[in-house]
């Protein structure tokens, strides 16, 4: 699979009069994994949400593969996103969480259960499909969140501080796993983090938010 081309130009967002993003521009080429660094509360997550279509920018354009998607609703952007606190659906089993995107894509029941099961195995959770997500450990939940996002084979993966809040050993293990998974899928990825080492380990390129602001 070929990853998407992403181009952000002049993205500005303000909340209640406070400017959070000021003319941010950034290009990410096919298959590239870019880490976005910056202090917490600096607007990195907001930028990711603009790309996802969760937050509408006050001005600026988001292009995916050359198509202006600034006004396209989230569910039609063909992106995947991993949230900091996973946001697993508590009322669905582990397998159904992973299969959710396939269900939305109208993949048949048997097929989506097979694919979701495969992905669970791929992230090391073979046979745990019937578990309640509320009973998973922190590392397991993170892996389910990754599998849920990647099973749909999104061409652009957005990762919002995906490895924050894990203990060091688990963190380092997941850094490796995440790096491998992203390489294997060939997707373009935009990773938000405040951890320089994590960024260096996972990403092909690191940009700091203040470098790409105000580039009028």
């Amino acid at each position, binding site marked *: 699979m070929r990853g998407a081309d992403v181009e952000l130009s002049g993205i500005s967002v303000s909340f209640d009069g406070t400017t959070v993003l000021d003319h941010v521009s950034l290009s990410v080429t096919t298959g590239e994994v870019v880490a976005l660094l910056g202090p917490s509360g600096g607007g990195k997550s907001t930028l990711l949400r603009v790309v996802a279509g*969760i937050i*509408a920018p006050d001005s600026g354009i988001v292009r995916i593969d050359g198509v202006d998607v600034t006004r396209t*609703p*989230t*569910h039609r952007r063909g*992106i995947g996103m991993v*949230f900091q606190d996973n946001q697993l659906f508590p009322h669905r089993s582990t397998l159904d969480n992973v299969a*959710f995107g396939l269900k939305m894509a109208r993949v048949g029941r048997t097929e989506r259960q097979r694919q979701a099961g495969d992905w669970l195995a791929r992230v090391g959770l073979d046979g745990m499909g019937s578990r309640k997500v509320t009973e998973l450990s922190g590392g397991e939940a993170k892996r389910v969140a990754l599998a849920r996002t990647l099973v749909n084979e999104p061409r652009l993966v957005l990762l919002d501080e995906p490895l924050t809040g894990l203990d060091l050993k688990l963190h380092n293990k997941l850094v490796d796993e995440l790096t491998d998974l992203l390489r294997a899928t060939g997707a373009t990825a935009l990773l938000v983090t405040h951890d320089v080492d994590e960024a260096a380990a996972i990403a092909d390129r690191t940009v700091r938010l203040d470098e790409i602001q105000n580039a009028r």
Partner: protein
Amino acid sequence: MNRLPGGLVGALVIVPVAGLAILYAWPFATLVIEAVDKESIRSVLGRSRTWSIVWFTTWQAVVSTLLTVIVGLVPAWVIARFDFAGRRILLGLLTALFVLPTVVMGAAILALLPDTLDRTVWAVLGAHVVFNLAVTVRAVGTVWEHLPADMEDAAATLGAAPLVVFREITLPLIRPAVAAAAAIIFLFTFTSFGVIRVLGAPGTRTIEVEVWRRATQLGQVDQAAVLALLQLIILGFLAIWSARLARRHSRALELRPLARPQKPRTRRDKTVVSIITGSTALVAIAPLTALVIKSLSTPSGWSVTAWTDLGSTEIRPGITLGLNPLDALANSLQTTAWATLFATGVGALASLGIAAARRAGRALDAGLLLPIGTSAVTIGFGMLITFDTAPYDWRSEWWIVPAGHALVAVPFVVRSTLGVLRSVDPQLSLAAATLGAAPTRAWREVVVPHLWRPLAVGAAFAAAISLGEFGATSFLSRSGGETLPIAIEQLLARTGSLLQAKGYALATILAAATVTLVIVIDRTGDLAGHSKARSGTLDERHADARR
């Protein structure tokens, strides 16, 4: 060793226990005995009219509940997700509507609707929806607020369109709250009495209204008793069923910290929020405004006659109405004063007793809740047929109506105070003991002083309940002793624009008084702190405050 003497605890609970036994248990037993009569049961159950009333009661309650839940989800969403100017006011407005006396709500809808829609099932459904909107908005909104917006966004990134997100993610997660709201609304609308008395027509009678009609208008006491019991049985089954359902579907939604409501940012959000807020506010304000307007309008234009001549009973020269609105106002104030005094006194004793008596206290606590589980009509009816023979012919005693009101109000006083008393650290009493205070003394110095502030809240509750009480009063009030709700219903049932205008004027007064009391409760409750001291949320306490 350090416990209160049993005699003191016994002295505290004797009055509440006796009151419960005499005013609730006895009439209830009389009612059951009256109803258990083969002939009456056969005659009531064998009549098709009975079943058409049961059918109407059920379907109007189902439709009212569905409509209220569906309509209420919209403002619930806006309040849960957005932070906007007037958010608290909107919530307060809906709550104010919810605590209005049933007769006032009926009057407000009557005032609002054109004559062609008055006294139709549509008017009844409309009143039920407006009345109970706050239940959906508050119960569902609170849970929705805790559901992270990110979770819905996560579903969107996985390809779910907004409606699919609602169906697949949001709805399953808020379902327990929706079900809880639906159960409360169903209970209220199934036992709807005041609204139907004002807005109903012969074809739109609930079981409650039919009980009242048979007992007081047709003199068929035995049949009314059968109907009252039938309703209790239906409600009992429904309660068991809904509790089972709730248990099976209960899902511990990990309540995370608030997903803080956001200020609407985009133009689209702003438009959506203002349209929904505006129309909700309109739904809330329009009926109340209509009350005031109708009290000031006559066929020949605006006039304040209804207000200035409130005390005159003359309809036309020489013909007088057997009802003086100003007397009704005075009666209501008097009744409310006594009911509040009874309820506050008995409630305070009960609270202190329950808090001190531990296990036995719990039984009394549960027992005191029974009157709110029983419909007001059933209570009034039971008292009517019990206290009618010497030496217990108390129906014409001045205290019987306030006592009936107090019966319904005591649980609210107990709810308001018990939590505070229970949250008093037992170590404090022990500390007092080490300083030389005997158990009774320690209790008086350490526990009792915490009673006063929550007791004031309880008293305001009792006053609000008594002011608006209609169901039990319909059975117990005597000619000349009409309270405001009774007078309002009677005035609105008459023809003649001045009489109607007076009915609306009285309804306006009652609405204003109730809303004022609720504001006092809210304020005092807030001042009393957000500690454990507040037993239950205000919603719970408001939930059954209107009878």
